[in-house]
């Protein structure tokens, strides 16, 4: 599948870019299987920005990784060896990113992450050619911990799937939660029934429940939690409250607090324009993945205007400037090339027939990440 940004090269772009080398971008993301919704949003957000820019010096090649690490590696090999791309982007999942990123940046390519940003790549494994435009994986969990503390909760019951991202999430929460833990549970990855955990929560006497259960796991948990009659307030990262899956949870999610680096009601002109353009173009509301894809494309375009992609140092410096209008408002890079940004607290609300999120506060301001000092570039 190939999209070529059609439209005319604008005069502005032509003036701003003294070096007009064609830039090839490889977008690897999940377009089939259970996780396809996330990848489709990433792609659509990214392509929206490219289309809006309307330039013909950027070619984007899109391929489906089927959410399988070995397929992602194979596609990356193809894009590098056969298509000769300059920049890779688009991977949703941390385990796929870990399979592709180290080897790609090792071969001198740029990788811009639209979502996954595991700790390994922020700390000792950081690289001048690797930029996370989304967040550092721990950020939203840390924000949930900070929020739970500021909301005055004293004891928390926390749960996540038993895999590395799940453990990172609980670690992130605990880093900023100052109360006590009433329970800490690792569930099976892909688990669909949470009756046992809910019973433990009921027996634990906690003030609040923090959970990180992405995708279908979160849908199942929230539906079952709502039905259990438990009134303990729940908080989680944005992944389980994404636009794509909120409709599948329905009223069970109403009122739940979640932390996010983006929300469709962030009050900036850039965000309003993005939400409107995305809704008009694709006939649905954008998700955080779409927003991050959109920002990534705009960051890339801003750097292309300033430097030659073949000049690693100059192009890296141009990216570091983050000279683009982020839909998240404030946006800059920490030294380890991960964002410094605000993390918001949102609440799930109903607008007409549609379930969506509304910002109710800011959990962390200008948060960078825990690994800056471990990164030696």
């Amino acid at each position, binding site marked *: 599948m190939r999209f070529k940004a059609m439209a005319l090269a604008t005069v502005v772009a032509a003036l701003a870019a003294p070096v007009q080398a064609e830039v090839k971008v490889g977008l690897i993301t999940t377009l089939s299987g259970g996780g396809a919704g996330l990848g489709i949003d990433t792609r659509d957000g990214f392509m929206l920005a490219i289309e809006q820019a309307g330039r013909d010096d950027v070619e984007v090649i899109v391929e489906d990784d089927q959410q399988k690490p070995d397929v992602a590696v*194979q596609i990356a090999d193809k894009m590098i060896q*056969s298509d000769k791309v300059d920049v890779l982007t688009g991977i949703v999942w941390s385990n796929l990113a870990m399979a592709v990123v180290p*080897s790609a940046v090792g071969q001198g390519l740029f990788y811009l992450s639209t979502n996954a940003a*595991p700790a390994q790549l922020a700390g000792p494994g950081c690289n001048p050619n690797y930029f996370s435009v989304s967040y550092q994986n721990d950020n939203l969990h840390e924000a949930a911990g900070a929020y739970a503390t500021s909301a005055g909760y004293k004891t928390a019951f926390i749960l996540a799937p*038993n895999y*590395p991202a799940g453990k990172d999430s609980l670690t992130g929460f605990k880093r900023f939660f100052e109360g006590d833990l009433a329970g800490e549970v690792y569930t099976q*990855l892909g688990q669909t029934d949470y009756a046992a955990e809910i019973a433990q929560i009921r027996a634990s006497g906690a003030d609040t429940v923090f959970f990180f259960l992405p995708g279908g796991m979160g849908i199942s948990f929230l539906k079952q939690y709502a039905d259990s009659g438990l009134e303990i307030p729940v908080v989680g990262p944005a992944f389980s409250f994404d636009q794509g899956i909120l409709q599948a949870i329905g009223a069970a999610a109403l009122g739940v607090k979640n932390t996010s680096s983006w929300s469709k009601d962030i009050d900036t002109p850039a965000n309003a324009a993005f939400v409107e353009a995305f809704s008009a173009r694709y006939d649905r509301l954008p998700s955080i993945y779409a927003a991050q894809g959109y920002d990534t494309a705009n960051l890339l375009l801003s750097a292309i205007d300033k430097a030659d992609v073949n000049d690693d140092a100059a192009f890296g410096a141009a990216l570091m400037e983050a000279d683009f209008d982020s839909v998240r408002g404030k946006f800059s890079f920490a030294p380890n090339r991960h964002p410094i940004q605000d993390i918001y607290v949102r609440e799930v609300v109903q607008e007409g027939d549609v379930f969506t999120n509304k910002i109710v506060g800011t959990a962390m301001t200008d948060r960078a990440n825990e690994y800056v000092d471990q990164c030696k570039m």
Partner: protein
Amino acid sequence: MSRERAFNLAALALLVAVPAWAQLTGETFTITLATRAVIFALAATGLNIALGLGGLVSLGHAVFFGIGGYAMGILAFHAQSYTPLTDWPVTIPGTKLMPVIWLVAILVSALAALLIGLLALRTTGVYFIMITLAFGQMFYYFAISWPAYGGEDGMAIYVRNGFPGLNTLIPIQFYGLCLAWLLVVLWFNARLARSRFGLALNAARQAPQRVETVGLDPVRLKLVALVISGAVTGLAGALFADLNRFVSPTMFSWQLSGEIMVFVIIGGVGRLFGPVAGACLFVALEHLLGGITAYWHVWLGVLLLFIVLFGRGGLVGIFAGRGAVHD
């Protein structure tokens, strides 16, 4: 059977010619694809020993593939982080040497096959299918939730492991290694099928009662077949991990077990070159159809149905006709 031999020779010629052409024209990615196909062919050839000769319908061969992969991953991980595997009773360091990794992959997957076989071969038929499937899931969940080696995230190995005298980072050289292994195993497989063991195993598949009444133990024959089969598939797993420079629990997934079986069936069960033809066709389809539609699995499913329902003998059968499997 000369037509089958002609087919085999043609397949061999392609395995040499296509990457050579790709090398000359600079189509490096075609070599990577061919390497993938050859490794899958090796894994499927392993399964074909159990399935084609022994009649063991194992839906858990990804276990061995994954074990081979993790043998590579764990050894290379310790080598690249300069930590020993264990300090007690003696210090065992990691390694980045392919021959050592291969040996470990073969031995460990053979051991796993022995243990699984001891349990699973207590049963036959449909029980055997389901038990191997369940063992696969058991390893899969273990790999996901055991934290020491990356869990669900898997492990990235930054530089491909080395082989004395070669630069394995150059695609065509690594391809050569994989092809050499495939040829060695195919040769072994051809000999095995005609050996005393092959004869007895073949009979154990067709008439287990008969084997027993001549004083042989069909279960023991099948156990040995499963061990050999698992070892070959484990070797393929180690090579696959080196191709991707990455291992993860998906190498244990039951879909992969299904796919390995698909290679064998599309190509032709019990045919020497069946798994090779099947794996090559699968990789080609994945590449070509995957480029046309994101829903290519539907068409793969339809193709598979047609082969099962109407094309007994798979690709090799279609080209070379039915005819004796052994001659």
